[in-house]
């Protein structure tokens, strides 16, 4: 139910993002979803990769600060109102979303989004109770912990 996101601390300087992507590429690690949140001085790069533990090791060996965060991959109907419907359910149940972003590919006819929740267990429960599909690590085809 939970999947692992790799978060990386990057300064807002030229070449940082390139360095991360190069390292991952050289280590044969594939990026499935990506988001960058930036501030004036720094940014946090969030990526879903096929080998999250390996990714963190590679990054750490190159003196980059990273960690693993548990997030949920949620299927969203690929039509107008699809996302709104899910957000409505979450709001009704007082579930707080920290951030979210989309996957690059689709696994079915539905879109796929990454959600980071304040209370992951509660959120997963509510989504399941409302028949919203959550992908597992296995279903995503990513490496298991």
């Amino acid at each position, binding site marked *: 139910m939970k999947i692992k*996101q790799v*978060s990386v*601390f*990057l*300064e807002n300087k030229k070449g*940082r993002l390139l360095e991360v992507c190069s390292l991952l590429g050289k280590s044969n690690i594939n990026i499935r979803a990506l988001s960058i*949140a930036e*501030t004036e*001085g*720094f940014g*946090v790069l*969030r990526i879903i990769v096929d080998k999250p533990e390996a990714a963190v090791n590679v990054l750490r060996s190159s*003196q*980059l*600060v*990273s*960690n693993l*965060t548990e997030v949920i991959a949620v299927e969203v109907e690929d039509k107008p109102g699809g996302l709104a419907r899910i957000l409505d359910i979450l709001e009704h149940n007082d579930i707080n979303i*920290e*951030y979210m972003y989309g996957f690059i590919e689709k696994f079915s006819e539905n879109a796929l989004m990454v959600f*980071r929740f304040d209370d992951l267990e509660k959120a997963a429960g509510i989504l399941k109770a409302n028949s919203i599909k959550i992908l597992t690590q296995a279903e995503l085809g990513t490496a298991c912990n």
Partner: protein
Amino acid sequence: MIFNEKFETMPLADLKNIQGERLRDLANYVYNNCPAYKTKFDQSDVRLADIKCIEDIKKLPFTTKEDLRNSYPFGLFSMPTNQVQEIHASSGTTGNLTVVGYSKEDIKLWSEVMARSLCCAGAKPGDMIQIAYGYGLFTGGLGAHYGALELGLTIIPTSSGQTKRQLKLMQDFKPRILACTPSYAMYMAEEAREIGLDTRQSTWQIGVFGAEPWGEQMRNQIEKTWNILATDIYGLSEIIGPGVSQECVHKDGLHMFSDVFFPEIIDPLTGNEVAPGQCGELVITTLTKRAIPLIRYRTRDIVSINYDPCRCGRTSPRISKIKGRTDDMIVVRGINVFPTQIETVLLGIEGIEPHYQLIVDRHAGQMDDLEVLVEVEERIFSDEIKQLKVMEEKIRKEIESILGVSAKIRLVEPKTIARSEGKAKRVIDKRNL
């Protein structure tokens, strides 16, 4: 005009006898009135009978900032606090301030040396002075005030800040003398330009600038901008505040009033006096203070000293402008900042001591900018921007609260801050002082 002809023009050979007498009295006075000094003297096997002339000062132990810190608040006083007339304080390396006190006689002494200083800079009785040094626990404002009273100046006690008002008062009241930090003088110039004031038409003719290090380049800038004679004043609260030494109109060294503040220049590593003319750490003994006299106080300021009489007629030895520090201390917006204070803050916040660095800069006409770089480590990293921002803010607030100066915090990647074999380069000072 020389304020105290007798002492300021006395041949140094004659002055030696007076200094010797004062030293004898001082050694006995602190021994009998300050338990901390009694202990210090006993530990150094000092025999009071051996202190006969000024050269015997070498037999006395040094006093350090640490001694002051460890005796917070009144442990180094030679007088019970109920006889102390006034207390001042300045920032110390740890959370504690450095506390000093003044007896009635000490305030008279302070007034005397500050009057000498103002006079040395060219002020005359009846001149109007704008004192834009801060009034309060800081010794700058009140020190200048006492000196101005003693010399018979007309005082405008604006203290620091409210720059538009400072400029308006200058235009309306037309003071001849300005006393403030050199960086504030530049900051006022910037404000003046913004309101369309021609700084070259200022009524200020003489500036008494100090409380922070500043070089010839800054002096030229201030003089050109304000059409003013910019003189340097040196002091430190531990000794008395401003008034320890002052440049005369020839601007060729700062006259130190060695009849009351006896200087020695030492090698900071060995403690021995350096050869004449060489640079070393300035050590000062307060020969006549009563509330908190200090014996051989290590200032950590590096200077050289010149004993030749000056063109102005004064024989008081002249120290150079401060060339550096023996420790890491920097002065930011007039406040003493020790990099180690940052360490304490960071350790206190997250239980870790990440690599950090201070970057001080000053853009044209602005006040000092302090930026603290903190390397992010796994332990303080979060996937959420808001957590990182909360951390940044926590560090910023703690630093401001403990240091008394605001800083911008910049989180950086690991290994961004250069490592070194020996002492880490904690401070990058980009200012062109």
